[in-house]
């Protein structure tokens, strides 16, 4: 009591503000950037690294780049230093190919329409505060069939062979189909693997372990070559459809294990509480167990989805022209050959935007669903 200027009665000490150097901008700099000699050294090193990498890259990509040209020669001719900037004219020239593949030009409005419909189908799934979300969700369920009809044709629309699909459109078809079907299948597999019924459990375990034990490329080759042996002779089975099935099954096995991890983390008391209230197995899982298990599994699920989305480039190997395939084909063109950096950077950017959005959305979802304190 003697070394403090004021004394307070018990419980009467007022709330004082923290010292000025500990909070705000000043506090942040002090604690995060310059707290120790090692920290100071690392801060300076990182700043020097960023300074030496970003400006040249920015110059190459933006400042010195050329956006209109008819060929590589013209492109480089327009630069102060040949190859000193990016030649985005090439990407511009091939943009339609990158987006639609070889989808017939007069029919491309169908792809555009499908894309708009896709966005409309995604919104009600991702945001629960939407008006009339129930109807939106029914539409989302119907969307794959609407889009399938729009893209493949028939029933009044000019049929388009699926081997003409390509580019970003192909990536989105495989990615979106894989993602939206593998989650429910994966959840069922996870529940099956935890089931008390031995036969069901063994079937699920075998399926999961087989799929996880085989590389996706092998599965894709199986899809492109072997599947016909297992089907009745004369069955025509579209290659794209086979790829869609294989990619979906592949990713559902991974989702199953991720979700099983989430289920494992739910305390037994939750199952008991649900049971003791008289909820049936299905209701207990839909209302109590899965909402919690899936919430825990979000990082793993999104991780699997991102992996799946990037793995769609593997269809290149069985001769389908995804953006990477289109890029390689374009580079074979003598007029433009030599612009590999631009092509791969463009493709990388496309995948990065898609995957980064998924990652951000998952963070948003985790924050939104956080209810503990």
């Amino acid at each position, binding site marked *: 009591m003697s070394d403090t200027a004021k004394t307070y009665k018990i419980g009467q000490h007022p709330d004082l503000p923290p010292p000025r150097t500990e909070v705000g901008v000043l506090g942040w700099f002090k604690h995060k950037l310059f707290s120790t000699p090692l920290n100071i050294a690392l801060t300076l090193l990182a700043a020097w690294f960023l300074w030496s990498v970003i400006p040249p890259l920015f110059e190459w990509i933006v400042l010195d780049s050329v956006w209109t040209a008819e060929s590589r020669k013209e492109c480089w001719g327009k630069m102060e230093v040949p190859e000193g900037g990016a030649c985005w004219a090439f990407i511009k020239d091939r943009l339609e190919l990158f987006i639609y593949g070889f989808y017939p030009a007069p029919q491309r409005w169908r792809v555009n329409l499908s894309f708009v419909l896709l966005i409309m189908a995604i919104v009600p799934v991702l945001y629960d505060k939407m008006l009339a979300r129930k109807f939106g969700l029914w539409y989302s369920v119907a969307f794959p069939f609407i889009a399938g009809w729009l893209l493949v044709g028939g029933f009044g629309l000019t049929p388009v062979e699926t081997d003409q699909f390509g580019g970003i459109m192909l990536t989105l078809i495989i990615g979106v189909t894989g993602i939206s079907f593998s989650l429910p299948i994966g959840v069922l597999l996870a529940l099956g693997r935890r089931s008390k019924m031995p036969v069901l459990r063994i079937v699920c375990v075998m399926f999961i372990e087989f799929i996880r034990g085989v590389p996706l490329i092998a599965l894709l080759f199986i899809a492109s070559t072997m599947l016909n042996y297992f089907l009745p002779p004369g069955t025509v089975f579209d290659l794209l459809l086979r790829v869609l099935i294989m990619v979906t099954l592949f990713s559902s096995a991974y989702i199953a294990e991720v979700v099983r991890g989430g289920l494992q983390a739910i305390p037994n008391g939750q199952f008991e*509480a649900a049971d003791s209230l*008289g909820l049936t197995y299905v209701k207990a899982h839909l*209302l109590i167990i899965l909402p919690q298990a899936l919430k825990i599994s979000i990082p793993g699920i999104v991780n699997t989805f991102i992996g799946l989305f990037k793995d769609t480039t593997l269809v290149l190997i069985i001769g389908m022209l995804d953006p990477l395939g289109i890029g390689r084909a374009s580079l074979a063109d003598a007029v433009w050959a030599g612009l590999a950096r631009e092509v791969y950077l463009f493709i990388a950017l496309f995948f990065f935007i898609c995957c980064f959005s998924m990652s951000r959305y998952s963070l948003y979802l985790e924050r939104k669903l956080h209810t*503990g*304190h």
Partner: protein
Amino acid sequence: MPTIATDGIAEDKIRHPTKKLTISEEVAIEMVAVHKWYGEFHVLKDINLTVNAGERIVICGPSGSGKSTLIRCINRLEEHQKGKIVVDGVELTSNLKNVEIIRSEVGIVFQQFNLFPHLTVLENCSLAPIWVRKMRKAEAEEIAMKYLERVRIPEQAAKYPGQLSGGQQQRVAIARSLCMNPRIMLFDEPTSALDPEMIKEVLDVMVELAESGMTMLCVTHEMGFATAVANRVIFMDFGEIIEQNEPHNFFNNPQSERTKLFLSQILHH
């Protein structure tokens, strides 16, 4: 009142019932020669117990004595392997229909509360009436609010369980069970996970519940509660019912040596 059972602390902690507690002739639970094993371990041995409607029974005993298992058998959270359990005239068999009927008639409150953390307090309470009793949402929420008021936390209805104290969570858990309008309530050490300051608020709610004539089976070591509301205390050990008596005689005149030892340990520590 017996001096040994209400050793000061228990006396001021427990509110004694103001109403006269009656017991009906009707049988609520009947257990005949019930046995249960966990693998090779014989956890319940020849349990015979008849509970009348309106009875309030406290079950005590050392840990591992089978007392939790006993009450969890009553709503089939644990399956007995031999003997017969009849709850409210319905026999517990592997028939899932019977199990569902009994579970919707028997409420249970757990030591760890087991509230659903992803749902608000109100949703926790109205979920089972909506999905099991097929009630309309508005009606279920009205009932939920009624019971939340009864356990004195209606103002917390919109919060999530993670935002409440242990005592509040346990009261929500009691309200959640009551929303199903059960005829029998089971309590599995409802105050064991609580801070000392919160035990009273939960016990008060339980005393009120006893006054309302609810049939209650309560595993607890709150001997003050036992003397205040129980009409029978059961002592278990080694998976057997060692002794049962009305509270006064149970505490002041225990018959077996095992019971005396147990009482001396929990009452004079």
